[in-house]
């Protein structure tokens, strides 16, 4: 792929900012419909040959240039994020494919009730759309990304046959599944955007383990290998190394395009009839707050950047006496439980959580203590290492985060990126509902792990390096006073400006957001295609 700099004067039907999960899906849908679409991304095409999993020092690459935290990774295309005002640190990737390059690819869907939180449970807000309106887009996305799984889950609405079978449970997963059965609690093999068999010209998974370091085999879906090749074949264009600084507007208040810096610091402008932002729950509000006037763009509600939701994650790690080959198999999921997902009385919290069963880590990360292991240095190190390495599985408790306007993304007063554009600052605190959910989730996870035969359970109340679900910062709603975009993802203030990423989530549910992000983006693209003649042109 080449990176061609576009000078001023070039005009497109649609400009998409951000080539990740949402931007790719949106651009693909438009391109196959014959629309002239161009995408700007501050990052570059990933080189699968450079992914860390193929190198002897793969575990330390995770701690350096393949770190999921952009503040640690600190590549030229990364912008800094002020994070000393949040206990949960930001996790994202800048590049074609966006965070799908480094995600772990667990792809559960929202429940129908997740779109009616205010009506059903009296908290948060309702979405201006329903699960049923998204259902066909979930299915399209599953086919395009390529997923594993099996239909029939009693905790979710019926769904179409999965393109490939579930990932193996593995020894620990089988023990934990049996424990759930024994307790009479729900579990189901996870849907995941990893193909368990060859599919769509891609090789099936060979169970190497660390999916979040990039998949050189291409078994894990990332949009650089799924949507983008198809979108480009249909005529879409991608410009890499294009760090967008501002969305520009006409005197009439319509969006006209975007100014951006190339890798040499030269400034450019790309104009378009419709501008679509898909730069993540942090990058999108950052861009809007830095555009327009003092209060930012599309911000008459004052809600751009507000209601940041992150999914607090707690972890319970079970230690099995016998080896369970914890290092083999995709590390981030094999099964999930939604026993405590829907609101129920008597639990001490409203809404709920999902439990995602993950596998173990490699030798170095285990020796260093992993996520919540306890491995001493000095005498006793090797004995403890042998007790843990290949012997553990972790239950990650993903809690629904209720929207709170005080939790937010704003522009930092002092910190900037290398082009002088203000960096975002995250301000975030857990609420009492999340704390109660964590306590409940750790107790139920301990019960499962003990039933599975674990003699020891290690707990972490909050995984700090887990801010990978960045939601809510340009909320969707019907009322322009209490939301930023409408059900079509169109901003209330500017008719030809859309936001299609997880920023638009009205509530967070308790599951990984990516399939919902992509379904919303596909739906927004379809609606734009249907209403194109009605979109004002600057």
């Amino acid at each position: 792929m080449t990176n061609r700099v576009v000078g001023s004067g070039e005009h497109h039907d649609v400009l998409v900012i951000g080539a990740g999960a949402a931007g790719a899906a949106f651009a693909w849908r438009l391109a196959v419909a014959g629309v002239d679409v161009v995408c700007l991304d501050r990052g570059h095409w990933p080189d699968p040959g450079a992914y860390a999993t193929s190198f002897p020092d793969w575990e330390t690459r995770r701690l350096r240039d393949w770190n999921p935290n952009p503040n640690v990774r600190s590549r030229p295309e990364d912008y800094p994020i002020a994070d000393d005002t949040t206990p949960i640190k930001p996790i994202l990737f800048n590049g074609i494919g966006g965070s799908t390059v480094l995600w772990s690819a667990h792809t559960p869907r929202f429940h129908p009730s997740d779109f009616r939180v205010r009506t059903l449970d009296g908290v948060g807000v309702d979405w201006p759309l329903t699960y049923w309106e998204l259902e066909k887009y979930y299915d399209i996305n599953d086919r395009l990304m390529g997923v594993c799984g099996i239909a029939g889950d009693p905790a979710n609405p019926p769904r179409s046959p999965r393109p490939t079978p579930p990932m193996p449970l593995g020894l620990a997963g089988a023990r934990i599944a049996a424990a759930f059965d024994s307790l009479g609690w729900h579990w189901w093999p996870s849907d995941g955007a990893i193909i368990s068999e060859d599919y769509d010209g891609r090789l099936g998974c060979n169970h190497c383990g660390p999916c979040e370091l990039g998949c050189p085999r291409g078994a894990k879906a990332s949009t650089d290998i799924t949507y983008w090749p198809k979108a480009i074949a249909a005529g879409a264009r991608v410009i890499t190394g294009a760090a967008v600084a501002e969305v520009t507007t006409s005197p009439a208040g319509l969006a006209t395009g975007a100014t951006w810096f190339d890798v040499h610091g030269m400034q450019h402008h790309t104009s378009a009839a419709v501008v679509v932002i898909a730069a993540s729950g942090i990058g999108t509000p950052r861009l809007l707050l830095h555009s327009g006037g003092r209060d930012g763009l599309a911000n008459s509600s004052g809600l751009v950047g507000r209601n940041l939701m992150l999914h607090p994650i707690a972890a319970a790690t079970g230690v099995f006496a016998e080896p369970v080959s914890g290092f083999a198999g995709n590390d981030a999921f094999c099964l999930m439980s939604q026993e405590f997902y829907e609101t129920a009385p008597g639990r001490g919290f409203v809404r709920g959580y999902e439990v995602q069963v993950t596998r173990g880590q490699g030798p170095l990360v285990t020796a260093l203590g992993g996520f919540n292991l306890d491995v001493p240095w000095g005498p006793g190190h090797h004995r403890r290492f042998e007790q843990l390495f290949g012997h553990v599985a972790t239950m990650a408790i993903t809690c629904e985060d209720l929207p709170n306007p005080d939790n937010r993304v704003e522009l930092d007063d002092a910190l900037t990126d290398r082009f002088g554009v203000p960096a975002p600052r995250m301000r975030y605190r857990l609420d009492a509902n999340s704390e109660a959910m964590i306590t409940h989730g750790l107790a139920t996870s301990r019960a499962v792990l003990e039933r599975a035969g674990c003699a020891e359970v290690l707990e972490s109340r909050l995984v700090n390096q887990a801010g990978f679900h960045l939601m809510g910062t340009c909320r969707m709603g019907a009322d322009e006073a209490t939301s930023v975009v409408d059900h079509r993802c169109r901003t209330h203030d500017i008719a030809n400006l859309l936001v299609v990423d997880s920023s638009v989530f009205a509530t967070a549910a308790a599951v990984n957001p990516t399939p919902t992000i992509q379904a919303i983006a596909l739906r927004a693209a379809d609606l734009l295609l249907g209403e194109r003649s009605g979109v004002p042109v600057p």
Partner: protein
Amino acid sequence: MNAAFIDALAEALLPGDAHWPSGAEVDLAELVQSISALVPGHTKSMDELLQELGDTFIEGSRLERRANLEAIERERPDLFGVARLVVLDAYYRHPRVLGVLAVRCGYRAAPPQPTGFPVDAFDPSVLSTVRTMAKRWRDDTTAEL
């Protein structure tokens, strides 16, 4: 940062036993130096650690070294963290240690790709119990399950 210091540090962090070689036995000096050079500031941190511990650390007994390192861990966790990271990184990549990992833990001593690991395919029969469970999701019109 010299070889004698790295040996003393590795011995204190990773004493050997009947199965595992000690950090000093596997001669980590060269690898620790090259790993430290990969991250800005790590070589400087290691040099600063040597300054803090002093030459007596190298000459000290096993108990004295441990006590000195425990003090550093408390008072300079930043320096201790770097030292622990680079020494353990070098150790768990050393061919002799990888050999022990294979024998003791059944772990193939190679990067995850391109080989991956053999894992038994998913067996749908394990779903027989959970398939009998009643519907557990709410429709969007009722607060009840």
